[in-house]
């Protein structure tokens, strides 16, 4: 590997090439026992990509069933299992591992460290999370599955009580749901603790917290949020398991228990959870938008403060999922206010991205295409969130297709788009090869068209009164044509994602070599080889500003002269 291409001359020893005569078993063993944050990060992302495809297949099945009124492609039992699994998969087996996978790979590199604070805990957390996911899918064949009765959970991904009680959900489907998520939840907690310890204790010399790049900052905030977000779900699920197996009465309405308290506990988890998913997406955008606009991020301190504010305020909004439950007018009013307020720091971030791009020289390579679409879509999603925060309007829109449209706009339009952007952006660093730009553009435009076809239309379905979680709909409600459009959009998105998967695999073998710094970027991960050696940096970096590579490339105009 030529040392001259490195921006820091002499910073890397010549690396002896990887032994090419490792057997397949040796390589497999290497990956299974690894504690290297980079390998674990890749494992997380591959795991999440697998479940992206599985969850996507579930979505396509759902949309085929809903393309026509009174369709018979899927029976009610199967449909209910598929949409429950789709939601549970996408949140817990796709979203969380993807986000923590990115963090695992990038955080130590970006802060100039050699690995995470606790590498063995890192490995343990990954395998625990993976186990949880496979346990959840085992439910399709476990219990009485595969004999027509099926044990996959079918109680929706929010699993309201008392539908989940033994009386109303006999069999093991709910148990698989609770136990697999408890297991993967502990894995997530381990990773969150690891990230916090890494960021606090292992930054390289000179990297004060206010000189840390924004992606690690956001992962720091997210990990802190995770500690108090996943744990309420774990607690509630433990209570559910105790109810089902020890005859307890936490959510047993017939013994005086409360169905509403499950809702409170679930949404105390559920709302901050979506911020756990979206803040890392913001982190990815915070790295990509400046590089492709050729400008420093506008308002770094404001971005840090806004991220922390979002995390903090998001803890107070949960009951906007419960506006129809019969809370007092005072309580409803409080949650209207708190939900509206969480929109303020979110808006600040959008404005800062706009200001970053303003006056720049924007290069629309594939990562930037996805990030640009993300900004538009997240703006729209945030605004439909504000619409629903108005409780009386939510009394109409709650549990309708408007809600599905809104959260898919955030989950897909913001998070998945940024995940794609991040993969295209960091793939060269991880593998040493560039992904195909042509295929990338095909992926982008097809996915964009399919996404808007599906999710723009869904807003109208909600306004026209179509509720969610229904395996079929009546033909006389005026929903027929719109559902067909939604379904076609879903198929188009599926094709786009398959193109992406092909690109990921094909580029690994045939993509052009990337070099150390293909995008002309500014953070520490671009100072080491592609892929980095196991020890990341031969010499621990010392930094003086937020963009150490910018300082090196522009010695007459370094950041540390101007940063606030």
């Amino acid at each position, binding site marked *: 590997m030529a040392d001259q291409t490195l921006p820091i001359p002499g910073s890397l020893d010549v690396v002896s090439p990887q032994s090419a005569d490792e057997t397949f078993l040796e390589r497999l063993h290497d990956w299974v026992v690894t504690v290297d944050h980079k390998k674990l990060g890749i494992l997380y992302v591959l795991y999440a990509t697998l479940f992206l495809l599985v969850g996507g297949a579930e979505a396509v099945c759902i949309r085929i069933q809903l393309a026509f009124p009174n369709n018979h492609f899927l029976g*009610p*039992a199967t449909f209910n299992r598929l949409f429950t699994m789709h939601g549970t998969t996408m949140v817990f087996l796709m979203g969380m591992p993807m986000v923590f996978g990115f963090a695992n790979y990038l955080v130590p590199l970006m802060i100039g460290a050699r690995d995470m604070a606790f590498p063995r805990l890192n490995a343990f957390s990954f395998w625990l999370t993976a186990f949880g996911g496979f346990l959840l899918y085992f439910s399709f064949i476990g219990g009485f599955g595969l004999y027509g009765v099926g044990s996959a959970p079918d109680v929706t991904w929010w699993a*309201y009580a*008392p*539908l989940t009680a033994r009386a109303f959900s006999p069999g093991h489907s709910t148990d698989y749901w609770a136990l697999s998520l408890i297991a993967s939840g502990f894995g997530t907690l381990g990773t969150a603790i690891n990230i916090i310890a890494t960021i606090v204790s292992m930054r390289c010399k000179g990297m004060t917290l206010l000189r840390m790049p924004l992606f690690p900052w956001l992962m720091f905030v997210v990990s802190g949020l995770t500690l108090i977000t996943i744990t309420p779900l774990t607690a509630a699920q433990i209570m559910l398991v105790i109810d089902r197996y020890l005859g307890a009465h936490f959510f047993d309405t017939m013994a*005086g228990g409360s*169905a509403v308290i499950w809702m409170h506990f679930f949404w105390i988890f559920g709302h901050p959870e979506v911020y756990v998913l979206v803040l890392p997406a913001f982190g990815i955008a915070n790295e990509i938008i400046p590089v492709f606009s050729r*400008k*420093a991020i*506008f*308002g770094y301190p*404001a971005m840090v403060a806004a991220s922390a504010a979002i995390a903090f305020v998001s803890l107070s909004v949960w009951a906007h999922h419960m506006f*129809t*439950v*019969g809370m007092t*007018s005072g309580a409803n009013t409080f949650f209207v*206010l708190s939900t*509206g307020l969480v929109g*303020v720091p979110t*808006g*600040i971030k959008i*404005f800062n991205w*706009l*200001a970053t*791009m*303003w*006056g720049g*020289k*924007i290069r*629309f390579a594939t990562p930037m295409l996805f990030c*640009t679409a993300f900004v*538009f879509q997240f*703006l729209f999603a945030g*605004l439909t969130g*504000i*619409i629903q*925060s*108005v*409780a*009386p*309007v939510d*009394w*109409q829109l*709650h*549990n*309708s297709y408007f809600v599905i449209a809104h959260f898919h706009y955030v989950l897909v339009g913001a998070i998945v788009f940024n995940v794609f952007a991040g993969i295209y952006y960091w793939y060269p660093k991880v593998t040493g090869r560039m992904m195909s730009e042509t295929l990338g553009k095909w992926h982008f435009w097809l996915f964009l068209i399919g996404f808007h076809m599906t999710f723009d239309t869904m807003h*109208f379905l909600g*306004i*026209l*009164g179509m*509720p969610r*979680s*229904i395996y079929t*709909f*009546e033909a006389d*409600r005026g*929903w027929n044509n719109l559902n067909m459009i939604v379904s076609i959009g879903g198929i188009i998105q599926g094709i786009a994602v398959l193109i992406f998967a092909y690109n990921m695999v094909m580029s690994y073998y045939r993509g052009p070599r990337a070099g150390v710094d293909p995008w002309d970027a500014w953070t520490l991960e671009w100072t080491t080889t592609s892929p980095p050696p196991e020890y990341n940096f031969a010499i621990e970096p010392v930094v003086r500003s937020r963009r150490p590579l910018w300082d090196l490339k*522009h010695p007459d*105009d370094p950041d540390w002269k*101007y940063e606030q």
Partner: protein
Amino acid sequence: MSQQMQRRYLKNSAIRRALWGIGIFLASVQGCVAADSARALSPINIFSRSSTPVMEIDHLALFVFAITGAVFVVVAGLLSFVIVRYRARKTDDDTSEPPQIYGSTQIELAWTVIPVLIVVVLFLSTARVIFAIQDAPKPPSALDVTVIAHQFWWEFRYPELGIVTANELHVPLSDSKHPKPTYLKLMSADVDHSFWVPQLAGKTDLIPNHVNETWIDPLRPGLYLGQCAQFCGMQHAKMLLRVYVDTPEQFAAWVKDQRRPGDKDPQTAVGRHVFETQACMNCHTVAGTAATGRFGPDLTHLMSRSTIASGAVPNNPQNLREWLKEPDHFKQGSLMPAMQLNDQQLDEMVAYLSTLH
């Protein structure tokens, strides 16, 4: 790629992006017009003018849509401008970087304060409507109905009128000068459900061990459709609602009809005997007979309903027969068991049930 082609490519993609920006802008304008088009597109939608609480929600909704629409137009417009104006051009000197601007405290303050003000305005207008709807004083002329949700059907009881029926709700017409709203007390016999008839009111959940209340104030007679809006099990999708808003004369006639005891046509005594000796009476009630079961719908006036199985199929002899023979045929997972009746019993039962007007 030649320089010329590259320029054209950049220009084309910029134009494409500009078109997207314009398209999105138009879509947001559409949003403000959605109200009227929604009404035209479908019999049920939330922008109806059929009931007081919905109208109050409508006005607030249009206000919120307008504000968020305006925000979207402004910000998306700026974004569209930025991606066209500041894209890298081939003619630019490739190695020079644009001026690096790190931030501005005044700008950050500006775009913090303005959104906070918008939130405050939205909050105040919302609070007003919340209290207006949730804490509306109940006029003495209001009609009381108790709604008990079951898996997968609706029980309606009129305590003051002594009526019990299922799945199809009749309420009297109200008007703004002499309001006669219907107040619904919402309870559940098993799991969580939600009562949603978009043209008449926002939805409210029915939760076991937790009594809720909502009200409708219908200003136009007619049939209004809705369905359960909280996943309640396998047949959540077929827990449909039909609400008939009757003129005062229609309502009086309906009430009179419902208060009669079950018809006892001697010609169908055989069928009634089947009904009473098979397990039907354990779950169903027919007023004036020995059948007093409460697990399933009250069948006293079954023939006054236009659908069976909570709106799943129209109420006619063939469907009724099929329902009795094999409920899973229409509603797989419904809690009505197949009663294993033979063909003769089925015919007799259908004949009997068809007399229950």
